[in-house]
């Protein structure tokens, strides 16, 4: 709409306005009103688009990053088979501490990629493989062959030679690990950090367990 075009009804409407107007500030003509309405509509559309665009892009980036950070949560239990050595290296009725490389380690883990287990040979072809983590809060237990006890240095949990709970805060016996004998070698299935809810890799069920859920 051209600004310079004179309004043909100008004089007449002005005279009418002088008689009718209640206050001089709020007077507006159609052209200005349409202008205001257009600009308001434009601002509203612009603001809505802006907010929607920002929220959408923020959500995409945010959810994406959150998924990236939380991805380990959605992996299941991860374990792998590791070779614990020739079975003839283990004496019957003796418990040995064995150092292995964790089969689910990262290449850059360094020393943290190592993992230790206790292996007790019960008979010629029968083994008991225990995790070193105390079931109370995960500290490594020490084996004492003289008394046949595992002792935990943190809060004093004690376990018998078969891993069952003897005394102290642990709610159950030591965690058991799945194992098999392949070509005269003991293979152990291990890797994940054991907790009370995701414990043994074997199908072992501990007989006694403190029921601490209210």
């Amino acid at each position, binding site marked *: 709409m051209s600004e310079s075009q004179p309004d043909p009804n100008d004089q007449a409407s002005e005279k009418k306005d002088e008689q009718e107007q209640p206050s001089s500030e709020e007077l507006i003509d159609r052209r200005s009103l349409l202008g205001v309405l257009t600009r308001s509509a434009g601002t509203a559309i612009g603001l809505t688009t802006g907010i929607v665009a920002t929220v959408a892009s923020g959500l995409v980036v945010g959810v994406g990053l959150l998924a990236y950070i939380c991805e380990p*949560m959605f*992996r299941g239990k991860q374990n792998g088979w590791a070779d614990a050595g020739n079975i003839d290296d283990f004496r019957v009725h003796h418990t040995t501490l064995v150092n292995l490389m964790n089969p689910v380690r990262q290449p850059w*883990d*360094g*020393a*943290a990629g190592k993992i230790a287990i206790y292996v007790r040979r019960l008979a010629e072809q029968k083994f008991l493989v225990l995790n070193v983590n105390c079931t109370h809060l995960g500290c490594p*237990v020490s084996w004492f062959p003289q008394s046949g006890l595992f002792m935990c240095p943190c*809060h004093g949990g004690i376990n018998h030679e078969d891993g069952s709970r003897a005394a*102290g805060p642990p709610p159950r016996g030591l965690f058991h690990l799945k194992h098999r004998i392949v070509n005269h070698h003991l293979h152990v299935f291990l890797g994940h950090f054991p907790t009370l809810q995701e414990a043994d890799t074997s199908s072992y069920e501990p007989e006694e367990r403190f029921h601490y859920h209210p």
Partner: protein
Amino acid sequence: MNLKNGFITIPSRLFWWFESRLGFRKTLVPLATHPVPRGLGWWYVFGSANATLFFLQIATGISLALVYVPSTENAWETLRYLNEDVKLGWLLRAVHYWGAGVMSIMVMVHMSRVFLMAAFKYPRELTWLVGVGLILSTWGMVFTGQILRWDSDAYWAVGIGIAMAGRVPYIGPALVRLVLGGPMIGGDTLSRFFVLHVFVISGLILLLITVHLYLVLWLGISARPSQSKPVDPDTYHKEYEEQLKNGEPFFPNSGYKDLIFSALVIVVVLCIALIFGPKGPAKPPDPTWVHVEPRPDWQYRAIFALEALAPPYMDWWIMLIFPLVAIAILVLVPLAAPYGERRMNRRPVAVLSVVVIAFMFIALTWYGYRAPWSPHMYAWRSRAVPVDLVKKRSPTELEGACCFQNKQCRNCHALEGSGGKRGPDLTDVATRLNYDALVRQVVQGGGLMPAYGRQLSASEVEALVAFLRTLHTSDKPAAGEPAHFPG
């Protein structure tokens, strides 16, 4: 421009060049000289001391990060390098460690001061809530920081932390993998803690400090309770305005105390760091070295003691419920008592709470250092049976003394004060337990003691009890058999 006076007016011209562009006279100067009530004393300096300490930690932390490598292969070696091969590297590590320690205490002192003076009441409830966020973040920095030391204590501290996380119902195992960044403690774990310590929680603290400062400046410093009436939202603002009319500018009249105290705190941290040096690193973190005694930094010894002392059925409550309840109580403090009396002598519950909680924390921390529940793993082969306890003993009794050592009894039981503290000192045990009671105790155990009946043959039990029966001083007789009950 008059060149003859040019040199003398350079400072003035420099000042005005900046001031005309920064406008501090209209913004920062009024802020710094805002009125505060008179007679505040030195009780209000702890907040700024916290900020000073935090910036000290940032400065030393940045310096440490120039050398420290957050990889499981190299972290321990870079810390050893800092300790031994970098000029004054040990001092840098020491300042960062002791700065964290002093800051942990200072945040608790500041919170106690605010609580005891009821400065959390209307209209400063939000300030308190932001402060709760700050104190939790500070403790988060302490935990993640000690992990970054990545020695044997740190490695097993991660294990303990995730063993606790694993107990959360349903989502426990997923939480464990989230914290570990994978199935096991590894490089991804250290990276996560590094990011948390250096970026996430630090950034959060900076953000919360900003909000905290905004609130403090907007709402003003609360007057001393002795000068204030009980808080009533209808009349508080008018009373406060009256107090401010008779107030003094914060800077320099009150702010000089903050400057002096912050400087003093820095000097104290430096002195402690110079005297005591850095912490560790302890042994390198090798998962196959199982003969370790993991211990947390002093800030977490109280929880360590609590977990050891609590009976097993309480474990779940202490690990998962108690922290949530404690945080909930902290959050509810200003919401439960936003108005009313501020003076300490009219608020006995508040004063008693602080005294009791402080005492509990100190007692548990001290107990966490003594750790009597931990067996002394090497006592059985490093502490000989005291000579006077084996003199003039029969062969069976001597065999029992050997049994006492070889079966690791000494790890938990002391003789004449040396040995483990997990069980009672047995120097006088024969005066307390007769023959039957001794046999029962050895075979069945009970409480903190395992049932040794599984670990000993009958003759070993016989010899051990024979030895234990000799453990009484000559003036006190051994406990006798009870008389048969009549009928």
